[in-house]
């Protein structure tokens, strides 16, 4: 026993060592007088540059009667600016051989352009135009409202089980704005006046609420001058207020049956969980990989392979700035009832709450995490996003170099502890997805 622990220790030590030598991500961080945080990572290994902006605004900042605003802006802010005609934003990037996109979570909105490095200035221009004077006009609002509705139809209404996040969150949270999903309410978007959109832009799309994170093939000294020229003239906004709402405990299991256009029944469980970044958060991530990281993970092996009860089974650590949920889900095989599936999911979880995982298993998971962690730095876009996320969430962009240590510190006992503390019935929401009851006529 003693020997094994020693071995494990040596092993993790070696892993950390590995990253201490020359593999770290070098970056420079500074703040412009208008409050814009800038993070730069210079890397000449490929002629590519990722220009990204992360605005610290997500669905949790929304008014309860105006949900969906943050995500709506992710669309609206591609409409154009004082100097970019409607519909031209994407074309500049495509014609330069670049790629662009954006995404919204409950906590932040992220935009990026991935460009050949000789088009760096284009990225700076586009992002500074977006921050300085985006066009918020009725015509754009109307167009994007239809696009967002179509997105909701495609990704939620029309996709089997697509509503699960919305259905789950509204039951898992009662007071915190995490109770709605970023897609929000179409009625709210319909009801919103142009003035409200303009106000949202003025409040949140200000340099002091943004991190400009750029990674790739550039000359740092030159880039800093350009950033100054493009972004310094943008006026600072007022301080952004952040919600400070404490969600009370769930206080008992919440269950619901959702009828959907599905053929196979599905079970979705969400356990309330701590916020991101703490020791428990890292233990939860290790636990999640034990459950569903790869073919040899417990949920896959038991539910999919051996018992053939499910066509797919997965756990999802859904952690945020204030609170989290830990999701386990499985889609039943044809003819398998949700209740049977749930029982079996529960016994996989019960095992985690009863016995320590083996040394080999926790090491396997840590090895998987280490590989993923390294791979997340394979692209400039990935590095830029990681730097910005770590800076905004934890005020420490350098976690990009050190976070793995936190995973390696997780012990078998830590996993048992979070399983016991959080994976309890009175702390969860359970949804069954079942086929719509309709007459299959003869």
């Amino acid at each position, binding site marked *: 026993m003693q020997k094994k622990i020693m071995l494990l220790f040596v092993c993790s030590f070696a892993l950390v060592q590995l990253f201490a030598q020359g593999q770290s991500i070098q970056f420079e961080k500074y703040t412009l007088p208008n409050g814009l945080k800038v993070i730069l990572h210079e890397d000449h290994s490929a002629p590519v540059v990722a220009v990204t902006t992360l605005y610290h605004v997500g669905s949790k900042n929304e008014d309860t009667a105006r949900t969906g605003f943050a995500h709506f802006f992710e669309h609206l802010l591609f409409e154009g600016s004082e100097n970019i005609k409607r519909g031209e934003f994407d074309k500049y990037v495509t014609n330069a051989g670049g790629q662009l996109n954006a995404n919204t979570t409950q906590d932040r909105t992220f935009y990026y352009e991935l460009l050949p490095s000789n088009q760096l200035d284009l990225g*700076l221009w586009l992002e500074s135009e977006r921050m300085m004077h985006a066009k918020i006009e009725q015509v754009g609002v109307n167009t994007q409202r239809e696009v967002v509705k179509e997105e909701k139809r495609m990704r939620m209404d029309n996709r089997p089980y697509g509503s699960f996040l919305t259905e789950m969150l509204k039951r898992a949270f009662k007071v915190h704005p995490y109770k709605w999903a970023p897609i929000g309410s179409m009625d709210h978007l319909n009801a919103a006046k142009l003035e409200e959109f303009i106000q949202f832009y003025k409040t949140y799309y200000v340099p002091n609420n943004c991190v400009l994170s750029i990674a790739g093939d550039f000359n740092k000294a030159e880039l*800093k*001058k350009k950033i100054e020229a493009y972004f310094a003239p943008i006026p600072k906004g007022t301080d952004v207020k952040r919600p400070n709402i404490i969600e009370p405990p769930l206080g008992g299991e919440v269950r619901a049956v959702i009828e959907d256009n599905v053929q196979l029944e599905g079970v979705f469980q969400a356990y309330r969980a701590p916020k991101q970044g703490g020791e428990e958060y890292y233990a939860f991530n290790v636990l999640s990989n034990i459950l569903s990281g790869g073919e040899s993970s417990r949920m896959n092996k038991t539910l999919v392979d051996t018992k053939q009860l499910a066509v797919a089974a997965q756990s999802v650590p859904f952690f945020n700035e204030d609170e989290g949920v830990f999701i386990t889900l499985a889609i039943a095989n044809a003819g398998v009832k949700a209740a049977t599936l749930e029982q079996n999911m529960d016994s996989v979880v019960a095992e985690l709450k009863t016995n320590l995982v083996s040394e080999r298993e926790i090491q396997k998971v840590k090895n998987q995490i280490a*590989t*993923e962690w*390294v791979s997340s730095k394979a692209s400039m876009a990935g590095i830029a996003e990681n730097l910005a996320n770590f800076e905004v969430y934890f005020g420490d962009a350098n976690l990009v170099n050190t976070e793995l240590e936190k995973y390696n510190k997780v012990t078998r006992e830590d996993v048992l502890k979070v399983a016991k503390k959080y994976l309890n019935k009175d702390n969860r929401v359970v949804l069954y997805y079942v086929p719509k*009851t*309709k007459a299959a006529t003869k």
Partner: protein
Amino acid sequence: MKKIVFPLLFCLPLISMAQKIDRTKAPAPGKAPLIQVGSPVKFTLANGLQVFVVKNTKLPRVSATLALDLDGFMEGNKAGLGDIAGQLMKRGTTTKSKAVLDEAVEYLGGSLSTSSLSASASSLKKNFPQLMGLMAEVVLHPALSAEELEKVRKQTLSGIESSKDNPDAISNNVMKKLVYGSNHAFGEITTTATVNNVQLDDVKKYFANYWKPNIAYLVFVGDIEPETAKALAEKNFGSWAKGTVTNPSFPKVTKPAQTYVAIVDRPASVQSVVAVATAVDLAQGAPSVIPSNVMNNILGGGFSGRLFANLREKHGFTYGAYSSLSPNRQVGIFSAESAVRNEKTDSAIQEILHEINVIRNEKVGDSELVRMKNYLSGGFARSLENPATIAGFALNVARYKMPADYYQKYLTNLASVNAQQVQDAAKALLNPSQMHIVIVGNAKQIAKGLEKYGPVKYFDLEGNEVAAPTEVKADASLTPEILIQKIINAAGGKEAIESIKDIQLTGTASVMGQSLEVNQKMVLPGNMVSVMSMGGMALMKQAVVDGKYTVSQQGMEAPITDELKAELDASAVLVPEHTYIAKGYQFKIVGAEKVEGNDAIDVEITNPAGKVSHRYYDANSYLLLKTSKSQEVPGRGAVTQQQFYKAYKTVNGIQLPSEELIDMGQIKINVKYTDIKANQGLKLADLK
């Protein structure tokens, strides 16, 4: 790592040196970046295995890919063999079960994948030597167990089954077969029959015939020294015995003498998948590849191509229209494709051919050419972020005997492409008078007028030519009244139908591989209960008994609407045509159609509630062959449900189908009645 503690102090001097910028227009691009495409270190093992090492120390990870230098081979009546063998390879080794192998790979935090002509593995540097051992074990000592073969077969078959409903997959299959020919490895179609022909022995022979080190490349990419790679290659693949591989031969592909139209009839289609395709003489690495690629992208590359601008933005025929060009040293292929609304099929073909003519006959303008070159060079630059791209380059250079500096010079060569070269490429590759125009769609609605493009031929899902769906003219003398009479007579006649007081049908239904019991009882007129169950547990129940309606699924009752009532009533009748006139149904003969090879009369039925459906009767026997109705599915629009009736049997003088196939697109239910009994004296109380 540097941290700037006093941002203000730092920024102040910068303000004075800030550059002047003009915000009103997009900044011009800087000088094209210098692309450094590293050259691999190369060596060959004694057994002929060629090894490349592309060192890239940016991240502490390594990958290795083993690739056979084969373009393909004929599989004949075992088409699909290579894919199956490729999947089977990583499902266990002679000493490790699949579960043990999976765990061993994941313990190393690694990934391992295999396909018909390659295997690859990647992990962090420190675990790589062990992972390499597992990769070699999989390649050299796969278990190839009968049990795993059946699992792979099952998955492959269900994939084929679902692709039968997928018009894009049908189009792709038929297009390949027509362009390359059925005697060419590139033109083979994997079918249920060919997959079922694959035996374990074939898989073993496949590995014995083709998996030889002397036709293989092993490419390492990542944080690894060439010496280390060499030692790993020797250790793991050094003992792999060389052997003779008979080079598969590829017959010469000939283009059609004239452009023709190939229709795959799919009556359920509301959209036509149109592809205009041709074989092209364009080998990987040939000097004309770069201008040809520019030409193809101007024509149909993504959202910025001309096909998209024309078919989607200008005409609104479709959501997308694209072209693709794949060079190959045996024979390459070009195709321009779009899925368009039925009624726009002809116009879409016309516009695609128009754009092909324009790019052949007119020089591309400067701004369009520059824009496309920027687009392509940007994409090339971005692809270099992935070390596997460099490995792919090294492989291409070796396999296709390209100049060693091909990729180093790629951007320079791309930048020098001019309008004349683009036009020359179009003329050389795209001949509008020798095209295959493949359409998957509803022939009855779309075929008219297509002769102007060339002869119109018909093909089945597997690319075999079939007769044109004959335009079966409904007998003009046939009035609804006469037809109803014929249907009733065919079913056994009024008297026989009315003589049935009760009936019981028992059998099985198979749904997605699951078998259910089916039990249906009727007390006529107007009472019926139908139950589908599994292991004695009722999954689905529908009933109308003494005016009481029930529909439940897995114990949950559905709300009863008027529409549902009408449908239940219609199902509580043996030969519903018998009561149509009395109940006020409208019965309209609208045309003729083939139903599973039989000529059928298409009748539109409107029930008293106004709901429209179609019934198809055999034009000779007047037995019901098919019903079809369309249901509005939220978010998806109209979805067609079809039901086929087969294997008619005589029961107490009337004709009843003993098999029914319910086709809801994704889901199919196949019902077989094993026992049908009439007039046993069932009472209403028996309908539970």
